């Protein structure tokens, strides 16, 4: 029975049913499009990868944080302003109080974890719907941000942004290392009982409770983990921009939710993995880049073609909307895959031999 081709088919079948399949399909499509438009020789260079990751690491990390919550059927739209909170703390503490920057940066992460925990308390113990609770948090955190830093200012030590944008040995971008480390953290978590409980609570809170799990505690921990990842994302944003801006991160909140959905995570909870978050945010990144190269080509191909960059944004947001609709169809093929599995079983003992 150890035929390699059968094994491959089986492996593909199980992948087709995994949550990441939706995001994988969307992501690969735009990836191929991007490579075709940019030209493989220019796409596959270390500096190109470095640049892509450098500009988008905050988005990717924020999506991972959002995914952590979405697995439990919760969302946090205040994640965007939390990014800014890290930014303003990391800039203002050294500038105003002379705190050494590493301490300030750590303080930024801790502050976001605290905010996330407060939000978690409202959701898990006060039972306020996460949408509304995080909605109120937007006002509070945004206010705090502006109190700390009223207008864009400040700088980041040169060594920080240089390191952030550099490649280790000229090959591996530092940002890639950051993402990999956080992904490994997820891989570790995925093997623990905690994540099993996350899936159980996200899938059916009542049944999980009946199996002896404490849903409130599980939720609280998820908020702390999400807060930690958001903190790191905020540091990346600070290093990337090299300056402080109290309003910089806001758009990331809703964007991360869209990225999760595009990656195939169910808003209702219990369905998805961190790969979904990577694929979903990767899709957003690649769309932007592809559309940029598409317009570059259009200028060359069509003489006299002249439009503003606003068109690029419109086209990419239009494609994202289409991508959202496309998730429905991949979800449908997934459902069909489940059904064929079901039929096989109804016919009887085919699988007993395994």
């Amino acid at each position, binding site marked *: 029975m150890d035929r390699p081709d059968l094994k491959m088919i089986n492996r593909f079948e199980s992948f087709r049913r995994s949550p990441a399949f939706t995001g994988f399909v969307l992501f690969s499509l735009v990836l191929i499009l991007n490579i075709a438009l940019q030209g493989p020789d220019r796409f596959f260079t270390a500096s190109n990868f470095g640049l892509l990751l450098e500009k988008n690491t905050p988005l990717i990390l924020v999506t991972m944080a959002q995914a952590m919550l979405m697995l439990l059927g919760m969302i946090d739209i205040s994640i965007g302003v939390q990014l800014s909170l890290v930014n303003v703390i990391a800039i203002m503490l050294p500038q105003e109080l002379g705190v050494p920057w590493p301490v300030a940066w750590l303080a930024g992460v801790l502050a976001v974890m605290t905010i996330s925990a407060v939000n978690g308390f409202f959701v898990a113990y006060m039972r306020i719907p996460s949408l509304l609770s995080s909605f109120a948090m937007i006002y509070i955190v*945004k206010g705090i941000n502006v109190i700390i830093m009223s207008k864009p200012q400040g700088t980041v030590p040169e060594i920080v942004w240089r390191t952030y944008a550099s490649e280790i040995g000229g090959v591996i971008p530092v940002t890639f290392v950051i993402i990999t480390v956080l992904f490994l953290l997820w891989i570790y978590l995925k093997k623990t009982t905690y994540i099993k409980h996350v899936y159980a609570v996200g899938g059916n809170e009542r049944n999980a409770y009946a199996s002896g799990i404490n849903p409130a505690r599980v939720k609280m921990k998820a908020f702390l983990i999400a807060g930690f990842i958001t903190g790191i994302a905020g540091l990346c944003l600070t290093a990337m921009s090299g300056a402080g801006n109290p309003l910089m991160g806001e758009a990331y909140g809703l964007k991360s939710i869209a990225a999760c959905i595009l990656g195939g995570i169910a808003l209702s909870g219990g369905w998805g993995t961190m790969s979904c978050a990577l694929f979903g945010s990767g899709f957003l990144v690649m769309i932007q880049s592809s559309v940029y190269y598409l317009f570059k080509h259009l200028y060359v191909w069509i003489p006299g073609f002249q439009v*503003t960059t606003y068109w690029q944004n419109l086209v990419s947001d239009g494609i994202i909307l289409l991508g*959202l609709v496309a998730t*429905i169809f991949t979800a449908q093929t997934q459902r069909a895959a489940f059904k064929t599995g079901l039929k096989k079983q109804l016919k009887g003992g085919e699988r007993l031999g395994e």
Partner: protein
Amino acid sequence: MRQFVRDNQVGMALIISALLFAVNIAINPASLNANTFGSIIALTLLLSFASAGQTLIMITGGIDLSVGAVMSMAAIFTANTMAGQEGQMPLVIAQVVPMALIVGLVNGVGVVKLKLPAMVITMCVSNVVTRLQYVYTQGLPTGTTSKFFTMTLQHRFFGFIPGMTLYGIVIFGIVLYILNRSRYGQQLFLTGNNRNAAYLAGVRSDMVEILAYVLGSLLAGIAGIIGAGYMNFVICQSLDSYTMMSIVAVVVGGTLLIGGKGSYLGTAVGSLLIIVLSNCLAVLNSSDAVRSVIMGGVLILLLAVYNKEKPIRQ
């Protein structure tokens, strides 16, 4: 007392507004003038126009994040088409209505038929609409609204009642009729409260829900036209902040997030609370930042009292 607080969210919102206003006057008696009064009324009306559609949609248990974008787009159409001339209103409406209809349909079909989360689809639609504003205007909207139109909005009767009240009477009339005096309103409440039971009782709940999104967008479009006339200046995304404010107004006004309960008058009171609160904080000379924090705090407080979910264990 406790019972009263629990059952009268709208009443509580009204009382809080009144208290805030009293504090406002106590601190700065000079602010008790016709002008302040007039601008509070006008801004409250504008916010309640913007929140009208949100009320309908949140009664179904959904949410619409494209309100602000639709309003901004409508505002741009208005200024651009009028360009300071009179008699262009029909043309403006001919642009705004189809735009709002398309947005509402995409939202509604996406939520009801494709079963996409309301928050995500309306946000993506909102992004597209925002990008369209930039493409349409090259990032620099031009034009002003007609003098007469702006005058009808800004004129103060008896020195303090803004002309916008006239529009308010019409819009409140329409929305209140739809919600409280029509079959559709009744079906909307039933669908929002118990979709399954409504379906089994013969209500075409899919249609009812899609229609809510369409009407919501139309109302946002109208609010955008009025907003452009009142502000009398236009930039891209000028009215985007109304998305957030409309949600707060609706929630504060006693509409449940899970749907099935809500009133437009409640939303109007919610709008009043928001405007008075920010006015009060402005008088206190507090910065926007402090205002924002206090706003969030008030919201959390109201949510903790009125919008809790049921515990699993009873």
